[in-house]
């Protein structure tokens, strides 16, 4: 499933490059800040994370994601556009599960608006994850 904000499986480099292709045309932007969240092969008690499985409340994601965009655009007057996409389903260690791109007239606004967007995604987006370990056990993360 692909909506405006969710994508099933990892966010591939092709998807990321597609987003980046779009930015060239905006000649009133001076800076673009991108954040990529990646699944880390953490180890706990001798077990290694091989993947994360994400689930999302899709209907509410759409509502909350629109609110996040509106919040950022009102808080950062210089922000021109905000795009983000989050994975659902299985994303293996080393793969990307979150992509955020914020364009603004000036660099600091781009950077700060992107940072705030990442924070709001963590806080507001109804997404859950469980870590899958190399012994096939799993653990829900908060």
């Amino acid at each position, binding site marked *: 499933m692909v909506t405006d904000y969710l994508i099933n499986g990892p966010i591939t480099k092709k998807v990321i490059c597609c987003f980046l292709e779009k930015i060239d045309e905006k000649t009133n932007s001076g800076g673009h800040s991108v954040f990529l969240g990646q699944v880390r092969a953490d180890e706990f008690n001798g077990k290694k994370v091989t993947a994360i499985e994400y*689930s999302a409340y899709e209907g*509410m994601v759409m509502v909350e994601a629109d609110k996040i965009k509106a919040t950022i655009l009102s808080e950062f007057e210089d922000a021109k556009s905000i795009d983000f996409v989050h994975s659902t389903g299985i994303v293996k260690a080393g793969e990307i599960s*979150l992509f955020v791109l914020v364009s603004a007239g000036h660099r600091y606004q781009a950077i700060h608006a992107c940072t705030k967007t990442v924070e709001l*995604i963590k806080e*507001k*987006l*109804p997404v859950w994850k469980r870590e899958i370990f190399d012994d096939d056990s799993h653990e*829900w993360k908060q």
Partner: protein
Amino acid sequence: MEVKVLFFGVLAEVTGTNFKNFRDVKSIGDLKLRIQDDFPEVVHYNYRISLNNEIINTDLKLKDGDEVALMPPFAGG
């Protein structure tokens, strides 16, 4: 009347289902008791409740077609 209740994250795992429909529930308070009857393990978990995509903190009346979700702490990113 009927409302749909969605279970997310660890609550989908412990209840063994992603959703269940409940008939003739008057309010969120009423619904919470009905959910606990069917899925007693739910009380051991931390969660917030949403009604039609909006997080709610008070008891509210329910109407036919409402969608309620039990949501453990978010863990996106």
